[in-house]
């Protein structure tokens, strides 16, 4: 009886400690969100503001545009780039993954091994050669410079190859007997059966490309073509005293990812445990 009581007390303490820590972990977000609605003079002086204002958002979305820092455009640039890349990565990975796991052709294993091998190299090793290539193609300062290098993802191909292996060959044979071609098999049979893989690949690609900072910083110099992250960084560099608008812009950059994460958390958690294997 005594033993049982002791355990329950330590359990209660554990829950309280975890609860406090969780709140500390969320606190930066709460502070960010709250501060972006505070009047400028209260950001650092009051925890609870006397009144809420949307001046900072107005400033960043309307005034900054007149200062040739077009945040609305940057937001759409980011959305456009992220959606294009995500769409392309999911589709190309689905097709390449099918070829590598279900089609028989010469040199298949070599290609699979090569894809795994090149995943070992950290991305930063290719930045200079990639820049030289993009410049030679005359693509500096275009959307293509940001989009092109990310169109195909070795990790995505690998994920699809792994998940296709669990689909019985009979399904494909049956579809072929019904007269389906390869395109139809992938789009209507394989993709729906591996919906969670597609979601994981799409989600992580989207968050990764939205957060991508160094590469667009290198290849985009034109304020009108900058994704949100780069424009925000340059705004921070030049107008670091505009704390309120900066925080509002940070909200615009970060909160969409938080919302996507909260909606698709199931796939996110699956993705984390899959990356262990």
């Amino acid at each position: 009886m005594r033993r049982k009581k002791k355990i329950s007390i330590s359990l209660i303490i554990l829950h309280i400690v975890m609860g406090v820590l969780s709140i500390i972990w969320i606190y930066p977000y709460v502070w960010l969100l709250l501060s972006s609605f505070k009047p400028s003079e209260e950001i650092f002086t009051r925890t609870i503001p006397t009144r809420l204002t949307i001046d900072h958002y107005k400033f960043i979305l309307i005034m900054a545009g007149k200062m040739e820092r077009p945040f609305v455009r940057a937001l759409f640039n980011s959305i456009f780039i992220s959606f294009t890349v995500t769409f392309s990565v999911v589709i190309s990975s689905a097709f390449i993954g099918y070829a590598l796991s279900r089609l028989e052709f010469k040199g298949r294993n070599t290609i699979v091994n090569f894809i795994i091998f090149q995943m070992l190299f950290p991305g930063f090793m290719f930045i200079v050669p990639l820049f030289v290539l993009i410049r030679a193609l005359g693509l500096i300062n275009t959307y293509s410079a940001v989009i092109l290098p990310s169109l195909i993802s070795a990790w995505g191909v690998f994920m699809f190859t792994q998940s296709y292996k669990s689909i019985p060959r009979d399904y494909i044979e049956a579809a072929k007997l019904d007269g389906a071609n390869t395109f139809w098999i992938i789009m209507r049979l394989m993709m729906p059966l591996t919906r969670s893989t597609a979601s994981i690949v799409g989600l992580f690609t989207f968050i990764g490309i939205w957060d991508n900072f160094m590469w667009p910083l290198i290849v985009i110099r034109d304020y009108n073509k900058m994704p949100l992250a780069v424009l925000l960084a340059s705004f921070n560099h030049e107008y670091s005293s505009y704390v309120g608008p900066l925080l509002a812009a940070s909200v615009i950059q970060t909160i969409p990812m938080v919302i996507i994460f909260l909606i698709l958390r199931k796939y996110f958690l699956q993705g984390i445990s899959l990356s262990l294997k």
Partner: protein
Amino acid sequence: MMQDSIFWRVFLNTMNFMAYFIPMVITAAFLFALALMKVRIFRTFFTLSFLVAYVSSGVGYSILFSNLFSETGPVNNLIYKFTGKTIPWFSDPQLALFSIALMVTWKFVGYYGLILFAGLQAIPKSLYEAAELDGANNWVKFWKITLPLVNPALTTVLVFAINLTFGIFTEPYMITGGGPMRRTLTFMMYMYTTAFQRMKPSYASTLAIATGLMSYGLVVLVRKLIEREVSLT
């Protein structure tokens, strides 16, 4: 490159960062994973509140933390109330690197903790029950069962953390710009400034290869030293 004093400064910074970051994040992630195993209620809430840090965008959270920890920011206000002093988080040469390690830890504890949690969950309960019958206490159970069996997950987390250390760019670029006194200059920042501001792409490529080899060598070393085959038969 061997005679480049900035290169060695960056090398020391990276080692210094690793000495702060890796013990901090591994310990915190492990405690988080162990606590999550014990927790009965609100498990989803705890998981999500730690994991939500992981999806924060690099630029946004750098701006957020540079304000949160600024001279007049809420963290320093709190410290001032209790001690009468403020801490120069990002302007003191030695402290700046530690502060960056601290905010990166904030971001990654949930993610690494969940990887470890998945590893912990894979350990069969029967092992602990058998150990209890043999009279093992919690300490022995942790060192003889938990730690050896969670080894693959632990290795994964360590490799992730090493790769992250060598690839860190956004946080020092946004917050300190490599300063004060080049103490937060990282390999990625040095590479970036060499290639695109000082226009020496070939030297930047040399740096990239050297950095790649270093991180790869360290990963191989870690796997040699701590990775053990785990079989549950």
